[in-house]
C-alpha cells in the first residue's frame, strides 16, 4: 500500500492509501467517483481513459490511466474532463465538440477532449504552419478510437478552434 497524493483539476487529493497495483483508472472511478474518465479496454489501445498530466516545467502530455498504477501519479498534477469548463462556461474546444456534433455516444469524448486540449496548448507554445495543421491533428488524435463517428467531426472541431484564432496557434 502507498499513500497517494496528487492534484486533480487544481484540487489536492490525499494522502489516500491505495494498493500498489491499483490502476489510476480505478482510483479515479472507484475511489474518487470521478467517472468522467472512462474505461474502454484496459490495454491502452482505445485511449478513452487518458488524462492530462501537467509537468512542473509547464508542458503537458496525455497518459492512459487503465494500465498505469495510481501510485505512478503520486505527486503529480493532472486534469480530467471534469476540469475543463469553469463556472459553467465551456471551453472553446468543448463548445466546438458540441456544435460540430463531434461525438455520438460520447464515451470516447473525454479522451479526445484531453488529447485535443494538449494539442492546442502545444500549438500555442510552438505554432505551426497552416499547411501542417490537418496532419498535426491526425497525428495527435489517431491513437483514440471512436466507434460511432468516423472521426471526421472531431477533427473538424479541433481545426475550427485553431482557425478561429490563427494568430494564437499558427505561424
Amino acid at each position, binding site marked *: 500500500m502507498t499513500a497517494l497524493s496528487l492534484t486533480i483539476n487544481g484540487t489536492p487529493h490525499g494522502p489516500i492509501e491505495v494498493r500498489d497495483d491499483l490502476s489510476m483508472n480505478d482510483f479515479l472511478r472507484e475511489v474518487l467517483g470521478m467517472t468522467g474518465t472512462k474505461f474502454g479496454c484496459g490495454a491502452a489501445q482505445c485511449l478513452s481513459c487518458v488524462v492530462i498530466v501537467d509537468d512542473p516545467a509547464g508542458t503537458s502530455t496525455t497518459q492512459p490511466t487503465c494500465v498505469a498504477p495510481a501510485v505512478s501519479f503520486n505527486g503529480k498534477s493532472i486534469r480530467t474532463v471534469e476540469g475543463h469548463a469553469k463556472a459553467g462556461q465551456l471551453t472553446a474546444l468543448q463548445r466546438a465538440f458540441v456544435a460540430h456534433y463531434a461525438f455520438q*455516444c460520447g464515451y470516447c469524448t473525454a479522451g479526445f477532449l484531453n488529447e485535443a486540449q494538449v494539442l492546442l496548448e502545444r500549438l500555442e507554445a510552438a505554432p505551426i504552419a497552416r499547411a501542417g495543421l490537418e496532419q498535426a491533428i491526425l497525428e495527435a488524435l489517431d491513437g483514440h478510437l471512436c466507434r460511432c463517428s468516423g472521426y471526421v467531426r472531431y477533427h473538424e472541431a479541433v481545426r475550427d478552434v485553431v482557425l478561429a484564432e490563427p494568430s494564437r496557434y499558427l505561424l
Partner: protein
Amino acid sequence: MQPTRRELFSWVAASGITLGLSRLSPAAALPFEATQTLPGRANAGLIGRARIDGIAKVTGAKLYASDFRAADMEGWPATTAHALLVRARDASHVYEGLNLDALPAQAQPTKVVGAADIAASALRTPPFYAGDLFCPIGQTPLYLGQPVALLLFEGFDAYDRARIAFREDKALVRFGAETGPRTGPNYAALRFTRIAGPTPEAPDIYSPLQEGWISPGFTEGGGRPIWKPLPTAQGGDYAKGATYGEEIRALLAADNPDLLVLDRAFNTQSVDPMFLEPEAGLGWYEEAAGALHLVLGVQSPFEAAEALDYMLAQAPATLRPTRLDLDFASLGGGFGGRDHTPFPLYAGLAALFLPGKPIRLAQDRFQQFQGGVKRHAFQMRSQIGVDRATGRIAAFAADHVLDGGGLANYSPSVAVVGATAAAGIYDIPKVDVTTVAEHTRGVPAGSMRGYGTLQTMTAIETLIDEAATTLKIDPIDLRRRNLLTAGGRTMTGNPWTVSVRTPEILDKLEAHPIWRDRAAKKAAAPAGVRVGTGVACCTKDYGTGADCSLGRVEIGPDGRVTLQADAVEMGNGIGTATARRVAAILGQSADAVTVARIDMYDALGLVTSGDPYAMTQAEQDAAAKNPRWVPAISSATSASIGAHVSTQAPAQAARIIFRFGLWPAALDLWGIKAGDPREFLWEEAFWQDGFLIMSGLPPLAQTAIAARSHAMKGITGAMAHAFSRWAWAQAAFPLGGLDWAADIDALAVRQGDGPFEVIDRSFVFFPPTDYNRIGTAFTSSCGTAVRVEISVPGGEIRIAQAYSVFECGEILVPELVEGQAQGGFAMGVGYALLETLPPFEDGPGNGQWNLGDYVVARASDLPLRHLQIEVLPPVSPKEPPKGMAEVVMIPVVPALLNAIYDATGHRFQSLPVTPAMLRKVIA
C-alpha cells in the same frame, strides 16, 4: 425544469411482481443550470442547434450505466460491492467447478453463485435466452464464454485481484474429460422462393407472401436441413415451394450459352459490435422493501424488464422481490449488441444473492469480447444467371449458413433478414434462397448493424460487378437495367411501400468524379501503386414489422415545451431528433427532453397480449375490441427505427396540441370567429423565429399563444402510442367536435393545467397480420464509390477518395444524419479490411481478446478529408423520415471489394481483405 432523478411508472406483471421502469437522469459533475441534458442559458448559443446531451458528454457527467455507483443513487447505501462473472473458455470438456483454493486469500469472494443455486431457487431462464444461465458442474459448457459462476465481493480490491487472476490463470476453472462440443438443433431453417408471373402486372406464380414462409422440416445426420423436396406426405407446403426452388436451381445449372451463370462462395467473418462502453449494471436488493433496484444500459428496456420478471416469477419468497425498479442510462454505443442481451439477468442475480448491499457487475474488455453478442459469420453460395443479350438477371439462388453460436438470440431473425435482402436492389423474376442458422459452440451471435444484409448484399453487389466485367457492360448500367423500381415486387412478393431512390443514386454515382475519372486515375498510378475504383448500391429495411413509439409532449403557459419518449439514446441522437421534429410543430425547441422513459404513460392504460409477429388475424381482431389494447407497448431501439418510428408518437402528440390547443388560441387572438373560412386553415400556418405566421394576419408570439391556450383550457399536453407493422396503425379520436384520425392507436390529453385523460378511439385499423409475411416494405438506399491505392509489393491499402450518397426522407437533424454516414463508412471499412474474430477456441470465447488483437478503424485508416457524404432531399416536403443508420455502412464493403478487383484483377470472397492477402495476388 430539472427532472427528478427517478420517477417510476409501475405496473403489475403476470407474475405479480410490480415493475417500475424509469430513465436515470444524468448526475452532473459541474453545476450546470437547467436540465443537464440541455445547453442551459449560459450556453445560449448552442440552444436549438446542439445535441441535447452535448453538454453532459463534454463535461464528464454521469450518463452511462458504468458511471453509477451506490453513492450516486438517492436513498441507497453508500458502499458498492462488486461481482465477477466467470465464463468458460472451453466447450469441449466437462466443467468440474472452480479452483478457489488457488485464488489468493486477498482475492476470495464473499459468495459464489452457480447453476445449483439457480436450480435451487427455481429461477427460470427466459425463453429468448434458452439454455442454462450457468453451466452446471458435470456438464460440458454449451458454448465458449458460457458463464459458470458469479463471484460476489464486498470490496473492490478483492474483486479486482480475482478478475485479473481468472484471466491469467486457466487452472482456476477446472475442466475434466473431453466430450467434444455439445450439439443443438438449428435455430432456423427457411426457404424463400419466388417465381414471378409472365408480366410485371401478372400475379406471382409462387411467392412467400402468397404461400407463407416455409421450412424443410428434415435434416441430415450432420444437422443440415434437407432442402430438396422429399417424396413424403408430410410437409406439402414446403415441397410445393421447394419444387419451384429446384426449378430455379436447374435453370442455373443448365448448359445454356445465352445465360451467364456465376457460381461463387463467400465467407464473411464474425465481428464484435465493439461499442466502447463495456456492459455494466448496478443493483441493490432492498430486502426490507422487497424491491430489486437495477441501473442498466440496454437498447431494449422493456425486454429487460420482462426477462427479469420471467426469471424471478417462480422464485421462493426470499429471492423474489415484490417490486423491480429499473433505471435506464444512456449507452456508450450499441450497434445492436445491447438489444436483447442477457447481461441484465446476471446483474439482477448479483444483487439478489448479496441482499442489502448494492453491487456492481461490469465487464472489462476481455470479458466483453468473451461474452458480448457478435455479428453472425456467414457462409454463402450464390448463383446468378444473367441473359447475355439483354443484361437482365434471369435467376438468382443462394444458400446461407449462419454461425449462431451457443444461444439462439436473434439468429432466426438475422437469417430471415439476410435471406430476404439477398437479391439486393434488383428485380429478379426467379429467386430461391435457403438459409440456416446453426447452433455451434461459438460465442452467441445476435443483432448487429446491418443485421444479415451486410453479408448477403456484399455477395450480390460483388456478383453484379463480376457479371458486368464478364459481359463487358458498365457496372452502373447493368445495375440500372435490373433495378427494382416503385411498384415492383421484392423476392417475398410484396412491393416496397416507400419511395425508391436507387435510380437517382445510380445517377449520382455515375456522375461523380470518382467514377467518371476512374480510367484516368488508374492510368496515372505512380510506380509501385495499383489504383482501383469500385461502386456498390444497396438498400436496407428499417423497422422490424412490430415497432412501437411512446411519446408525451406538454406546453406550459410560458411556451416552454417538455417531451418524453421511450427510445433509448445510444449515440444516435434520438432525443435531439425527436426534439427537432416536435419543435417544428410547436414553434419552440424543447426545454426538457428525456428519452428512455417508459414511465410517463400510465394515463393511456395500455394493455397487450399475444405475439405481434405471429398472431392470427382473428386474434388481433378480437383483442382490438378493447380500446386499450395495442399489439405491443414498447420496442427496442434498433433496426434503424429512430427517426421513422421513435419520433412518431411525440410528433403526433405535438400535432394534437397544435391543432386543438395552440390553433384555437391563435384564432382567438386574431379575433377569428367560428364559421370564418380561415378557422380550418391551420395547416397553412407556420412558425418563424418563435412567431406563428399566417398570410394576412399579424404574427403571434408562441408564448402568447401558449398562455391563451392555457387560459382557454385548450389541449396543452398529449401522450400517444404508435404501432407499425410495415404500415402505421391508424385510429380516430373524438376531439374538438371532430373525429381526429391519426397514425397512432392510443391517446390521452390534458386541457389547461388539468390531468391527463385517456380518449377512447372511435375507430382503429391495425395493419393486417398477413403483413408478417412481408420481407421488406420500408427501405432506404445508399450508394458508395471508392478509389483505393494498393502498394506493391507491400499490399497496404489506402482509401484515396470515397463518396456515399443516400436518402432518408425528411432530414430531422442534418448533422446527425451525416455523422451516422461517416461512422457507417468507418465501420464498413473495418469490416472489409480490418476486423475479424476467428471461430471457437482461438476466438473471443477464450477470454484473451482485446483491442491489441482486434483491429478497429482509426482515423488514419480513413479518407477523412476525402470522404464526401451526400443526402438526397426528400421526395416531397411531407415525406416522413426514413431509417438510414444501417444502410450507410453496407455498400462500403462491396464497393471496396470491387475497387480491389479493379486494382488487382483478383476477386476476394472472404473477409477481411488484409495486406497479406493482397500481397499474394499482386506479387
